[in-house]
């Protein structure tokens, strides 16, 4: 399959067949088409795909698949078996209908009691209720009766991680909780991935490696942030990500995560170290680019490579200068005591910070505090949280001999960062408040 997995189409189809039944999981045109029978099966399929980092495209009868850019998913999740009008409380003038039910089929049933849904979407004989909602389609009747979102009073939705959630209800007037069904109307669908500029090499977690049938092909020493560990290596025949293709590639097999977050693996510099990465967390957008994007404002910060091609940049906190390692794989920013002492921090007075579990799962205690007047290139943070500890990762990054910072997501999420790896330049977008 295309993205970060080594499953073949046939393996994927076989795994999905165990959920939806063999006759409903078939390989067609370089993807697996799976047709679950109910919401429970949809959730199981999505748990499987999110555990394996597979891309999914939900589909109905396909009338609007040509809208927007075409997508090439690993899995097409067909709603066509989840069909029919489930309930028509005609005296209450409400109905419950399945995603795969065609508009005409629904209207035919409603007409038996002289009722209709006051909307005239395109291709009603084929278009499904789910597809019409996802695409927020409507017609001329909207002018008199309002749009689709006004007609939906409740919904059962399945999130990408397999969570089944209800929203709204079957009553016509209701202000309890969030109207997620209005949010879902016209949502089309989205997906996510983890980028880690602090990871030298890519890795997969053992639970994913096992379920994907990946075999160990050697051993290596992994320098995690809390220490070194001897770990097995796995050879992937191919890994493709946003236009970058690596084949073959050796990745580290990590033990399952201690925090239970269902990640399949980590993509590191071995995959995107020769590209420009546009890491725009405030807008929830990450892109791998062949060249730096146009229109970057302000001066770049020159970066210096350190161990394993990782980049470091100068950062100042007040009047103190320090070396910062850009690490999008770290949730929280950490500093070593060489910097802590220069900032006048007192170990006895620090609050207890997180116990850090790195990729190698060895726990280390830290102190927590805040620092003021931070300058990252053109970007200034008035006040920012840090964890303080002499973690082995400073040594691994080759910066343990000087005041150093591991720049984590808690600082990076406030700003857009563009890293041009070949030119060793980093931009931080100025304040945007």
């Amino acid at each position: 399959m295309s993205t970060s997995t080594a499953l073949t189409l046939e393996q994927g189809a076989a795994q999905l067949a165990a959920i939806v039944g063999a006759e409903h999981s078939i390989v067609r045109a370089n993807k697996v088409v799976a047709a679950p029978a109910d919401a429970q099966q949809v959730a199981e399929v999505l748990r499987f795909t999110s555990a394996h980092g597979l891309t999914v495209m939900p589909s109905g009868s396909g009338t609007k698949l040509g809208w927007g850019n075409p997508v090439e998913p690993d899995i097409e999740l067909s709603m066509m078996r989840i069909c029919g009008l489930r309930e028509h409380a005609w005296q209450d003038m409400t109905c419950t209908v399945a995603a795969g039910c065609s508009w005409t089929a629904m209207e035919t049933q409603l007409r038996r009691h002289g009722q209709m849904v006051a909307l005239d979407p395109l291709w009603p004989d084929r278009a499904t209720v789910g597809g019409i909602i996802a695409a927020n389609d409507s017609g001329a009747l909207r002018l008199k009766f309002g749009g689709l979102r006004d007609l939906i009073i409740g919904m059962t939705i399945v999130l990408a991680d397999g969570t089944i959630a209800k929203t709204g209800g079957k009553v016509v007037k209701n202000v309890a909780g969030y109207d997620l069904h209005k949010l879902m109307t016209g949502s089309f669908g989205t997906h996510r991935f983890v980028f880690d500029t602090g990871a030298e090499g890519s890795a997969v977690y053992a639970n994913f490696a096992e379920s994907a049938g990946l075999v160990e092909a050697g051993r290596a020493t992994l320098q995690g942030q809390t220490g070194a560990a001897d770990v097995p290596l796995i050879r992937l025949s191919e890994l493709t990500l946003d236009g970058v293709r690596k084949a073959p590639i050796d990745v580290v097999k990590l033990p399952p995560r201690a925090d239970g977050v269902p990640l399949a693996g980590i993509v590191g510099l071995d995959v995107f170290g020769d590209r420009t990465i546009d890491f725009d967390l405030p807008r929830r957008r990450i892109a791998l680019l062949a060249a730096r994007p146009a229109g970057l404002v302000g001066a770049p910060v020159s970066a210096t490579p350190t161990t394993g091609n990782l980049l470091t940049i100068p950062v100042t906190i007040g009047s103190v200068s320090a070396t910062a390692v850009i690490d999008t794989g770290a949730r929280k920013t950490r500093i070593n005591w060489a910097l802590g002492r220069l900032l006048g921090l007192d170990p006895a007075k620090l609050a207890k910070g997180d116990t850090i579990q790195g990729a190698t799962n060895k726990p280390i205690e830290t102190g927590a505090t805040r620092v003021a007047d931070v300058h990252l290139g053109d970007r200034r943070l008035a006040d920012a949280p840090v964890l303080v500890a002499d973690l082995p990762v400073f040594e691994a990054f080759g910066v343990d001999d000087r005041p150093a910072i591991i720049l984590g997501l808690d600082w990076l999420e406030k700003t857009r960062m563009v890293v041009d790896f070949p030119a060793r330049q980093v931009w931080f977008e100025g304040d945007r408040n």
Partner: protein
Amino acid sequence: MEIMDALSIEAAEAAVHAHYPVCKGLLLVELDGPRSEVEALMQAVQDMCRHNGAWEIRVAQSEQERALVWKGRKAAFAAVGRISPNYIVQDGVIPRTALPHLLDEIGQLASAAGLRVANVFHAGDGNLHPLVLYDQSVAGQEEKALELSYRILQLCVDNGGSITGEHGVGKEKQEALGYMFSEPDLATMQLVRCAFDPENIANPDKIFPRPRLCAEKPGPYTPHPLETAGIAEIF
């Protein structure tokens, strides 16, 4: 379309003297539109009422009569103050067809609790406003009234309805929201809340059953220290 029951009619009559009939329940219907359309529809409404056993139908003959009938309905909440020293206004929703059955059940709950419940509501959309009457000066009666009021909300949910039709969830209905929605439902809504308000600064500690902060893990309810000490109580 509005409905008033015997208790609320009694209260409204005492307040505005609208000359309501003495009866167990009253349906107020107002139509809006071009005169000819309204006249035709009003005939249909009257036929429907008669067919369903209405024993008296009055059509307002003047603007003053119309205004007086509405004045009683609109003053009903305040007027209940004339027949009870304290009361709780509730706001629940049910599918419209569940109305007769639900009113019976509310009546049974009320008599079991030894309290009176006046019902005023929007008949057209299933949005109920039961008024739970009580006397604060009688020891324990307020607690009983709050419990009854919460039971009515549960009844609405059990009948496929909602805990609020138009007034929303703030602090008082936090726990009731947990009765209406399951953990994954609330966790999904929380994703939306955290996306817009990651630091929990917009109306903090409202809507979601506690503990429900962005950083907090969902789990079983943990009592507030005041509650443990017996000083405050959560309903």
